[in-house]
């Protein structure tokens, strides 16, 4: 199902089947080059598969942007242990709603991507970890899995290769933290979603203590087309080291918010103005959160930038999950910072001190600030507390909370200062007696 009009500027590669009638059915998929890639891959060695992936310069679409071919190459061979292929469909990064579309509209593409991963490491078992809120997608994906079994793409002796692969769905039950890969594995094992200590990384010790390939839904969904059309072709769609296309989820104050498939490196201002019809109501642009709520916001004057991993990293933010929140000039940045921190405080697993206490403290300060009880010293305090979390937490959630917050106070200090002016009467005493 489509929830927004497509844009003529899109390059429809992984979303090419979205608008086909019965796009979820295996017939539709097969009629449109479906399961061609796996036939091709079954004749390839793991080395060749990984080489092709490296050529494609596909990078993880979940948030960290790690080169997928490299990630697969870390899985040790012949350990005597079973191996697993896990799909991270625990899409929870605020601003992101693409995996939902991929599963809803083209589940077979995902299954085929996972099959390719499975064959590469000779795994016999895979799981698609779908967030609990996406309950309806479990039925869609389960149906697709059944079809794939019926047609011999899953199960025993797949396409006569002698190789068996079983695939299952697994549901979360409301925890952003389970999007972190090791927390996801804990959750898959029936435990609290507390991240694991690393190393070892999941490639070596992953699901059920065994070597594991773990990628995002969009990453797997991008793989069949790479093997149909070639890694070089795919790489050529994007910019150097940032191959292919990605689903960009645009939300906020634009005229045509929506999920659009665009080549890596697509210019952010073009995205806003040409794909999304510009900022709503003729307002001026104030900021863009470019890669989900964990990514530091870009100020309007920083937005003429290619949307790829490296360009955004250079701008001290990140491409993240591809969730872009566009904010217009009327946006209350303090309110956005508060809402962001409320989210992280709610989702902090509580395992380590700086994240557990830091997110809550920041939430309290921002909440008080937002209500008019802010002090001038709070502005610096917010920055310092974020700095005390940054790089010191057990897992990246602490960084994800600290980075955007630090950026909000650094880049939009005027907005914070304006609050003090506006709420002079309500301010908390500057010197706290403790």
């Amino acid at each position: 199902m489509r929830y927004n009009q497509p844009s003529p500027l899109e390059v429809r590669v992984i979303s090419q089947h979205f608008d086909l009638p019965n796009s979820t059915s295996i017939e539709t998929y097969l009629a449109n080059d479906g399961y061609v890639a796996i036939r091709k891959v079954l004749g390839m060695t793991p080395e060749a598969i990984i080489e092709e992936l490296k050529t494609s310069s596909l990078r993880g679409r979940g948030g960290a942007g790690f080169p997928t071919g490299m990630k697969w190459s870390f899985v040790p061979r012949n350990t005597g242990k079973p191996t697993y292929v896990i799909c991270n469909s625990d899409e929870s990064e605020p601003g992101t709603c693409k995996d939902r579309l991929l599963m809803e509209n083209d589940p077979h593409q995902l299954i085929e991507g996972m099959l390719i991963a499975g064959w590469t490491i000779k795994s016999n078992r895979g799981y698609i970890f779908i967030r609990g809120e996406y309950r309806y997608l479990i039925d869609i994906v389960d149906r697709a899995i059944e079809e794939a079994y019926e047609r011999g793409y899953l199960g025993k002796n797949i396409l006569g290769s002698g190789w068996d692969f079983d695939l299952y769905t697994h549901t979360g039950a409301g925890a952003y933290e389970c999007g972190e890969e090791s927390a996801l594995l804990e959750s898959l094992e029936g435990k609290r979603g507390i991240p694991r200590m690393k190393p070892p990384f999941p490639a070596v010790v992953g699901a059920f203590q065994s070597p594991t390939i773990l990628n995002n839904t969009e990453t797997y969904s991008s793989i069949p087309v790479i093997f149909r059309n070639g890694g070089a072709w795919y790489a050529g769609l994007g910019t150097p080291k940032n191959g292919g296309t990605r689903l960009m989820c645009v939300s906020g104050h634009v005229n045509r918010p929506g999920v659009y498939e665009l080549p890596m490196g697509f210019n952010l201002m073009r995205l806003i103005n040409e794909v999304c019809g510009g900022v709503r109501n003729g307002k001026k642009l104030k900021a863009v959160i470019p890669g989900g709520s964990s990514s530091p916001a870009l100020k309007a004057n920083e937005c003429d930038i290619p949307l790829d991993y490296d360009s955004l990293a250079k701008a001290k933010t990140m491409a993240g999950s591809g969730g872009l929140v566009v904010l217009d000039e009327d946006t209350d940045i303090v309110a956005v910072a508060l809402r962001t921190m409320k989210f992280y405080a709610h989702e902090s697993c509580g395992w380590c001190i700086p994240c557990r206490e830091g997110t809550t403290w920041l939430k309290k300060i921002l909440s008080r600030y937002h209500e008019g009880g802010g002090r001038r010293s709070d502005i610096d305090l917010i920055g310092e507390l974020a700095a005390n979390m940054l790089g010191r937490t057990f897992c990246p959630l602490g960084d994800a909370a600290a980075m955007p917050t630090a950026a909000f106070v650094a880049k939009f200090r005027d907005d914070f200062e304006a609050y003090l002016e506006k709420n002079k009467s309500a301010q908390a005493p500057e010197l706290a007696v403790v």
Partner: protein
Amino acid sequence: MTFSPALEARFEKLLNSYPPGRQRSAVVPMLLYAQDEIGCVTQELVEEVARRCGVTPLQVDEVIGYYSMLHRKPLGKYHVQVCTNIACQALGAEDLYEHASRTLCVGNREVTPDGLISLEEVECMGACSWAPAIQINYDFHHHVTPERFDRLMQALRDGVYEKERDTKFSNAVQPTEPA
């Protein structure tokens, strides 16, 4: 403890979907699916899931405390979840939540006296590009204005929600250009 045949079948499939000796994996899905059927996580359910998955009730308790969708008290027949995270916030979700709370006369995670509707302010649910969004149980509703919200609530009260869900309240957009 007995469940519907459909749920029992699902449990059986679930327990078989994990490697031998790894049935603990079924704890979270089992709790969520069972909660969908019986309304909340009861102590009896905790013991039952512990037994079926070969864990202690404490290990089940630990899981329940961690996952925000698992709850020990019954919610309304229709659990209305309003996302107020940044993408929805930008398009007025906080006002929408206030509106919902005011018109339903319930606070966060509270149930209307008739047990029909419960309300919850939730985190990002994956509908950012079609904000503001709400979920009624597991159904997504996009671009929800206060007016659309009121119509949805009326449909719940009138008992016509299921009938109108995919027609009157459909989220679908027909592409106007060829795919």
